């Protein structure tokens, strides 16, 4: 592997590197000197755990007979386990609703903030971004309070109109309760990334478009949005990875929404329960690995289908 790449690499060298030979060896050494420390951490805390999870997931621990090698039995079990499947179905459903919602909201806010340049707009930008600085756990705690019957304002507000307050912690509306928490938490962050990308567009393009008779709406849809497509793909990927491994918010709201959110609500919570409450590390590892695999495949498929757009990878 190394030999192959070594032979191929010099061709891609910038022209400025004149002297080959001696400099070459030095370049290898210095390159590895800079990349090496990260490489060690990468091997220790990414490759090793992944490999270990895969290894563990191939075994099963039984009360009688101890630990035995079972190959893919744990995966067969996971993909026929109603707990895992319902959790996986939930996060997929949740991704399909929450990701478009967050991105459309973030895009709309970024376009508005790119256009409106008053002091209040700048203030709004910061305030909308503020939830990103809040730990997801604290965000969930805060919204949990707002939802709760005892402390929250919902009972009072709906009481004014003689209506019963919706219970966002009940099993009917918990989906929307979580949707709101996640949107509140992340939309501002995505907005800032898109806003930064919009600010990077060359303004003379707008000038040219206006000369050609494009309205502002057309400038937005034909120039701004296509030009920030890489940033859109970046945040799509991030939100997809984040949502599929959903854990913090439901885990925190569990305490308040007794009975609504079970221990197998999302695959990640299920893996956590298997590993830490039931000490079933083999099955927990299998679920983790299966979930990691699903995320990887989803993201990879997504990037494959959008590759024409010159994505960030």
């Amino acid at each position, binding site marked *: 592997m190394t030999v192959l790449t070594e032979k191929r690499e010099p061709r891609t060298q910038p022209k400025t590197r004149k002297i080959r030979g001696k400099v070459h060896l030095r370049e290898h050494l210095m390159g590895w000197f*800079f990349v090496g*420390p990260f490489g060690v951490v990468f091997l220790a805390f990414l490759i090793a755990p992944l490999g270990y999870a895969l290894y563990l997931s191939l075994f099963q621990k039984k009360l009688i007979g101890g630990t035995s090698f079972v190959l893919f039995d744990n995966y067969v079990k996971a993909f026929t386990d109603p707990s895992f499947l319902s959790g996986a179905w939930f996060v997929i459903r949740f991704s399909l609703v929450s990701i478009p919602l967050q991105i459309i909201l973030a895009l709309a806010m970024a376009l508005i903030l790119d256009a409106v340049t008053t002091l209040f707009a700048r203030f709004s930008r910061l305030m909308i971004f503020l939830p990103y600085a809040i730990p997801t756990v604290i965000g969930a705690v805060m919204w949990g309070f707002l939802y709760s019957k005892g402390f929250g304002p919902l009972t009072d507000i709906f009481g004014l109109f003689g209506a019963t307050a919706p219970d966002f912690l009940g099993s009917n509306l918990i989906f929307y309760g979580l949707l709101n928490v996640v949107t509140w938490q992340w939309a501002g962050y995505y907005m800032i*990334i898109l806003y930064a990308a919009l600010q990077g567009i060359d303004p003379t393009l707008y000038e040219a478009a206006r000369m050609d008779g494009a309205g502002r709406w057309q400038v937005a849809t034909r120039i701004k949005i296509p030009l920030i497509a890489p940033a859109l793909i*970046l945040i799509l990927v991030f939100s997809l990875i984040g949502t599929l491994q959903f854990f913090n918010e439901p885990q925190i709201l569990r305490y308040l929404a007794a009975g609504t959110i079970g221990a197998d609500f999302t695959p990640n919570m299920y893996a956590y329960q298997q590993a830490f409450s039931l000490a079933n*590390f083999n099955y927990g590892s299998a679920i*983790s690995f299966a979930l990691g695999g699903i995320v990887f495949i989803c993201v990879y498929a997504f990037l494959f289908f959008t590759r024409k757009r010159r994505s960030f990878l």
Partner: protein
Amino acid sequence: MTDPTSVRAGARRPQRYLPMQILLGFLVIYFLVPFWWVIVNSSKDAPGLFGGGNTLWFTDQIDYLGNLEQLFTYDGGIYLRWILNSTLYAIAGGVGATVLSVMAGYGFAKYRFAARRFSFAVVLGALMVPATALVIPTFIMFSRLGLTNTVWAVILPSLLNPFGVYLMHVYARDAVPDELLDAARVDGAGEIRTFLQIALPLMRPAVVTVLLLSAVASWNNYFLPLAMLSDNRLFPVTVGLGLWQGIASANNSGGTSLWSLIILGSLVSVIPLVIAFFSLQRHWRGGLSVGGLR
């Protein structure tokens, strides 16, 4: 959404668009409601919290100082410990991850070494591996090594930041000209000195961004410390408040005093990061655009 864009030709005077600003006003209210609720309700004592009344407005009794005193003395001052733990994890994890990312990003961008392309492809692939999928196997590995329930169990895995490497790679590639580095080498500067004195200053906006992002990631982390730590004196504030919330929810009657601590505890715990973000605003905004533009 009738008219969301402007043509920057008229950028000299502020673009106003009143309807857009009113819309923004509503959005700001939405994003601030939870903060407002927490600020109001951390002024109340237990009877004020549970006695009904307007939950979005203050009661006659505004007692921040008394509540703060309670918060910081409860259970032998455990809350302060959690804050200090979070600070330690955020600084150690953030600085460590940033140093590694900056070096690796620069290395990938500026040296043509053996297996470079392959390694970089692997790092990019790692962006897609969900961090929480690694927690359980890392926990089992650490427990074999006797490292669980120590600060290292939280700090060491936080050093991994593939996105930081990607960001630094893009930034170093674009913002640090090869010619400048070659000139420094011709002048007799060693590779490390060239990196520290020429490249690093040019990379500063991205360095600040990566530092802030990784410190925030460590500060906000919940799943990893929740899994790794069992001694509550090592908890970061996120896990600690989660613990309190579990206790308070479990015993509805006995937990009343704990609820007001949780509310004020949430408020106090977000203040450091909010300050960090606002004061470093000018630095991170430039770096954030990098990831999205390429």
